[in-house]
């Protein structure tokens, strides 16, 4: 099979089947955009996880005057405080320990809620003093909690990770939803490819039967159909890629990142890593669907 001959046949085929080709390109573009969006979301979640889990702390709140926990007998004493710090220091997974006094906590609080009415109702005493502990791995929270649970002077232990986990669970739900729609669209694309190829094979049955009778191999009879589908898939994948890159440039970089400075967004290299996947999925699915259809409709 010579290249010029094949490319001529492919061009003819695509033009003859113009509306179907357009439908196929659009379908590939839409489904791959969704696949791309799902992949982008997953990269985004990974990035946020990496960033925030790194900053996660465990807070060990110490007893105040009004505490009712069984480990509290009035406000924490200096002795208890030293003891707690020693226990923390002896734990393997603890990397850093910061002490935050009630006054520090109040100062922080004031900064965060500046100008809010809540401020008037809160006195420095109402905010408990605490140890902020950084773990080598957030998974080790249970160990730390176990070691400190019944130590005198500890009122409560709070894991920030729980809050984040809930947030990430919601994101994961959204991500699965996007992926499910993407898969449904891919399925529609597969059906469309099958139908397009079947119509094309039917329209050209005369040609293919002549090719067969002059001894063309199955491969060279099927190749133009497969290449036609592949060309449509490449165009569709390119559109989807353009959409993904555009959303990085105009949505994430231009709109979201400047306004949501506390969220780390996916980088260009992470976005670009998605591109080959899109082409692979787009062209792979299409070529596979086309080949299977041809096996059935162009028997040798």
């Amino acid at each position, binding site marked *: *099979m*010579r290249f*010029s*001959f094949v490319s001529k046949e492919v061009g*003819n085929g695509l033009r003859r089947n113009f509306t179907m080709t357009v439908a196929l390109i659009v379908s590939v573009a839409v489904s791959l955009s969704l696949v791309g969006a799902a992949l982008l979301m997953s990269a985004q979640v990974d990035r946020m996880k990496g960033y925030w889990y790194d900053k996660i702390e465990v807070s060990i709140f110490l007893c105040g005057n009004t505490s009712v926990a069984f480990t509290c007998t009035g406000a924490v004493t200096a002795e208890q405080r030293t003891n707690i710090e020693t226990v923390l220091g002896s734990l393997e997974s603890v990397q850093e320990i910061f002490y935050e006094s009630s006054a520090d906590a109040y100062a922080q609080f004031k900064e965060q809620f500046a100008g809010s009415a809540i401020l008037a109702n809160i006195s420095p005493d109402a905010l408990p003093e605490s140890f902020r502990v950084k773990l080598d791995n957030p998974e080790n929270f249970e160990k730390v909690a176990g070691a400190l649970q019944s130590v005198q002077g500890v009122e409560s232990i709070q894991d920030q990770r729980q809050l984040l986990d809930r947030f990430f669970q919601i994101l994961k739900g959204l991500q699965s939803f996007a992926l499910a729609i993407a898969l449904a669209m891919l399925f529609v694309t597969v059906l469309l490819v099958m139908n397009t190829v079947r119509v094309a094979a039917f329209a050209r049955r*005369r*040609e293919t*039967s*002549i*090719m*067969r*009778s*002059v*001894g*063309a*191999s*199955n491969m*060279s009879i099927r190749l133009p159909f497969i290449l036609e589908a592949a060309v449509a898939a490449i165009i569709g994948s390119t559109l989807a890629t353009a959409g993904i890159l555009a959303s990085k440039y105009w949505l994430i970089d231009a709109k979201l990142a400047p306004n949501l400075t506390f969220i780390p967004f996916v980088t260009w290299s992470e976005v670009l890593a998605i591109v080959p996947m899109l082409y692979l999925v787009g062209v792979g699915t299409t070529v596979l669907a086309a080949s299977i259809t041809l096996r059935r409709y162009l028997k*040798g």
Partner: protein
Amino acid sequence: MINFDNVSKQYKNSNTPALDGINLSIEQGDFVFLVGQSGSGKSSLLRLLLKEEKPTSGTVTVDGINVAKLPNRKVPAFRRTMGIVFQDFRLLPGKTVFDNVAFGMEVIGKSKKEIQQRIPAILELVGLEEKAHRLPSELSGGEQQRVALARAFVNKPKLLLADEPTGNLDPSTSVGIMKLLDRINRTGTTIVMATHDVAIVDQMRKRIVQMENGKIIRDQERGMYGHTGQ
């Protein structure tokens, strides 16, 4: 070259066999007319040679190859050793005469250079060198059949199968096609041609294999259509 050994063919949705115990041997360079009434099994016999169908029993060998046992992937290469001509020409309507003949070379991977060299000669052989750039719809039936013959012969096959190649042509045009087939035969190509055309068969005086209800009822060298024996 071709050998049928007790070959029968029973189509699935039919209750009488299309071919019934066929024994037939054709040598390299032979010219054989396959005659008989409609439905007697001529096309079926040709289809077995192409491996378009498989025999229900018996063996068909072409050039020492047991056709039924030929693996599917080898069928294309096998078909390239033969040329095929049909009653309805089977030309590609969107392609010129030149391109239709070139198609037969392109699909088997011949280079542009080979194609450019070979086609003028073959078009001259069939007398269409002047009409190389016409479309099939701009040709008469006889001219179209000559294009089909050019395509079948362009790769110099050892065997040429023709199923009623003159079926749609008037007598004088048919004579032109037969002259062409005779010339091709003289180059050493074996020709098996199924036909109803009494005039042609009688005129050519070639071997005649006559079929009836799937059986061979006559096999005669230099025969005439209507006459049994000399």
